[in-house]
């Protein structure tokens, strides 16, 4: 296999397509993730908080997954959900799990033609050093892409994913994805500079439990 990084600088000038390809591929990836990422507004007495959320499968359930801390109980059970194309609907928080920092929002029946949900990936198959990207609204900047690598192998099935990636408030609840666009986790915090995400299979478990309850 040729090593893309080992190309000398002259190789890049001879084949400008290499770095242009990187840019185009990342742009395409950002567009795809924007389609499955929503912006969540919660209104409290004094401020308007913004977080991210992920359109979660199955499509028929019209579910958005986010962090419990994005839709804190004190801020009410109705939250504004805005898609990448600017549509805003009011969703109802159907389940909160503060321990796993997860919440599920159900969108109303009349939400119309919603984009397809994310494709789930499995972080347990991702190698340390593999490229991962995050999408969210850091500091309120909508649809921003972050680029990094998987920092370490998860210790066990339930443990958090750690990524060497730059996240900020507003990334909470957004997707952490591999290059094929499949979502391997839901970003939830920054610890010692590392981006921390809840693995997709843990999120899916939470969603299924919610389905059993409702």
């Amino acid at each position, binding site marked *: 296999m040729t090593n893309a990084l080992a190309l000398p600088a002259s190789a890049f000038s001879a084949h400008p397509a290499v770095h242009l390809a990187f840019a185009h591929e990342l742009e395409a990836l950002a567009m795809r993730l924007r389609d499955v990422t929503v912006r969540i507004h919660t209104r409290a007495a004094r401020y308007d908080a913004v977080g991210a959320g992920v359109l979660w499968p199955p499509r028929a359930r019209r579910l958005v997954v986010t962090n419990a801390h994005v839709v804190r109980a004190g801020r009410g059970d109705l939250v504004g959900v805005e898609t990448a194309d600017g549509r805003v609907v009011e969703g109802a928080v159907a389940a909160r799990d503060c321990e796993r920092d997860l919440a599920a929002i159900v969108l109303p029946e009349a939400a119309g033609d919603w984009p397809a949900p994310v494709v789930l990936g499995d972080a347990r198959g991702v190698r340390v050093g593999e490229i991962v990207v995050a999408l969210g609204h850091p500091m309120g900047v909508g649809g921003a892409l972050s680029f990094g690598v998987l920092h370490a192998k998860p210790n066990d099935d339930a443990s958090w994913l750690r990524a*060497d990636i730059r996240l900020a408030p507003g990334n909470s609840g957004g997707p952490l994805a591999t290059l094929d666009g499949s979502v391997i986790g839901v970003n939830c915090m920054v610890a010692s500079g590392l981006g921390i995400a809840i693995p997709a299979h843990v999120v899916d478990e939470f969603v299924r439990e919610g389905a059993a309850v409702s």
Partner: protein
Amino acid sequence: MPSASPGTRASNSALRALSDDLAAAVERAGRSVVAIHARPRIPASGIYWRDGVVVATSHTIRKEQDIAITLPDGTRAQAQLVERDGGTDLAVLRFDSAPSTGAVSLAARASDDALRVGSLVLAVGRPGSEGVSTSLGVISAIGDKWRTWSGGEIDRFVRLDLSIYDGFSGGALVDADGNVLGVNCSALARGTPLCIPNATVERVVNALLTRGHVARAYLGVAMQPVRLTRALGERLGLGDAARGVLVVMVESDSPADRAGLLVGDVIIAAGGKSVAEPQDIAALLGADRVGAELELSVVRGGEQRPLRVMVGERAPATDARRRGRDS
């Protein structure tokens, strides 16, 4: 589902190739990076540098004996601290018994020419028994030979734009092929991520294994920069903006003392080169100069005179000083 189709994969094949290269580089380098349990809480990293010998950063080693080391295959081995050099923040450890084949591999090193500003690099560490971990970034600046705050000589200044996470000090900086470029360290410049290049590591390891310390040339003077008066400069034919360094202290029985250097002398040249800062003299005091003669040009009592100093070797520091800063 539109996503994970073969078409999607092909559409980001350049990134995919890069991602695979990065993961392969981490895997390859990870076979030479070990975890060193020699301080409370988070262990730090080390590199299997040559047969039986592990290199680490000195500031992450808080005990000297019976140090446990987690090998890349997950097994544990015992090692002892051979020596450390607080100046370059490097430490050398030796396994009590040779690790079994396959448990750990010797680091494959890149040549120092491979260090280039803008190169994509990975920091590979093993801050515990859980496996290898990494961060991605670029080499942000490369400078000349420099001296650390504690007097160590490092062949090149290599600043990194990447995160050196807890326990990453002592780990490897690797290129995209997984070849080691040097040892990562966050304790040499106020937390700035730096890399100690292979040439320095090799030199220090050799010195510590053969002599037990890194030789450090010295004169035994304290100096400060001064500007000569215009009249003096012109009278000595040095122009009207001549500069030098003023000797403000001479250690008794030091090389400078034996050569007859006095407090109040102004050194205007050393080794045939003009001198404007104390660093100009420090730059002439590499380890290889011990025992050599250094020709000084000194202004004393308004007259210029030559002076020969036999460069001495600073006595190895005491244990406490060798240990350097704890962080």
